[in-house]
């Protein structure tokens, strides 16, 4: 694994919302104006926390990943 990506160290991306947001926007090919990037950096930790919360219940780890269908949900 390279020590840097786009000139940013891996450890910096993990710890620094600014570096992470810039890297993720770059990966998605989206280039907002600088002032809007600032707002995204502010909101990023809350978004990440919401995603991280998905992994907190052990039971869900072993659930199937599927989209609901009539048959799946007929007995709900």
């Amino acid at each position: 694994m390279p020590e840097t990506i786009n000139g940013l160290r891996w450890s910096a991306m993990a710890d620094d919302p600014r570096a992470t947001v810039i890297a993720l926007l770059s990966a998605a090919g989206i280039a907002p104006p600088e002032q809007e990037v600032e707002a995204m950096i502010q909101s990023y930790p809350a978004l990440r926390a919401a995603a991280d919360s998905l992994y907190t219940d052990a039971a869900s780890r072993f659930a199937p990943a599927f989209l609901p269908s009539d048959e799946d949900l007929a007995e709900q």
Partner: protein
Amino acid sequence: MTDAIHADLAVPATIAEAAAALRSGYLTSVALTEQLLARVDALDAKLGTFIARFDATALAAAKQADADFAAGIDRGPLQGIPLGIKDIIAAREGGTTACSKVLDPDWGRGIDAPVVARLRARGAVVLGKTTTLEFAMGPPDPEGPFPLHRNPWDLERWPGGSSSGTGTGVCAGLILGGLGSDTGGSIRIPAALCGISGLKPSYGLVPKSGVVPLGHSLDTVGPMARSARDCATILQAIAGASPDDPTSSRRPVPDYARTLTGDLAGLRVGVERDHHTRVAGFDPTCRDRFEAAVAALERAGAEPVEVRFDGYPIVHAAALVTSAAEALAYHRKDMQTRFADYGRGARHSLVMGAFYGSSDYVQAQKVRAWGLATLRDVLGNCDVLITPTMGLPAPRLDGDFWAMMERTYTPAWNLLGTPAMSVPMGPIEGGLPSGLQIIGRRFDDAKVLRVADAYQRVTDWHTQRPPSNARSPS
């Protein structure tokens, strides 16, 4: 001028009343349509309800409805009834904008979405296309080129979204009902904040072909009207499989009106307080309204039972991750090449999808399956669940939209595909409306409507109109 919003209507307030008046000869569809168009003339600039009006075709449809009545042809309770269609749904009179500069102006041009075709087949009068948040997401955008929606109860406040125009139109009496769409609350939020009724149907019950997508596994199209009975009438017309939509269910559509008996005897209503009204900072006036709603349902014959849906917070989070990821998948190419053409609110909502990883999306789907199993356990002890729709009144147009979302209890039910309805629950802070959310098992929309209708037989919040002193925009 704000008195006009409150003006005593010479026309019936509900579809059911209008249907009766049309059949009694007291009213013609042409007269009804003309009167509503006159109200649109007087109020639309203030409320931002319509993005496009179809006056000529609407009057032609009304004339046809009257001719059919005269000839003894009765297509059912929507014949001759003026409705509004959210402008992410195709209607043959013109293009669809999704209130965005990004959408191809020819998208859906010249065709009716199946839901619109079904309304027309029942004799409904399509008055026009109603405004939406851009691509049915994000906060309101005062800087954009599209009409800014205002809440008829207070014109400096937001009416909710994204089905904002259908919400304000029903609330202010510009239409008797209409269609909205709901991916995370877009029917139920404006229903709650405008004091009307709105149903997010079970995922797959109503076809969504001819509708601009947002989150493909979450999107639903549903009715908005003053009463649950009117919502049942519209749902009856639009539900059922369509060959254009492979996600639409082939289940038979029940007769919803027959289930509206007003009797809830033997029905158990699960009351979820722990993740709603017992949360720190919850609006005490909304809590009081919710407890009054529980008592009203008990008066209607239901047995309230306390339940706790432990999966609620994680399911809510999974709904947000799923919605963001699916929305960006649809918009990614345009976000890369036309970022500035999106309004600020829409592009900030869409970009969230870039901040989640592939494993987050997969895990959200695992949570979806886990949440369904958890909900099944909860519903093993009751027939429906109830919660407040939201925990605060309509925010100011310049308010903190994202903070509001923390008190919005709608997205989880999109993830789980269940029917969820918001009905008026009475005034809270500032005399503004609130909503009671009723959630059922998937494809048991009939029971949700039955509970909502029974609740409205023992309360009158759904008949309330904005006050004559509704504040004008400054």
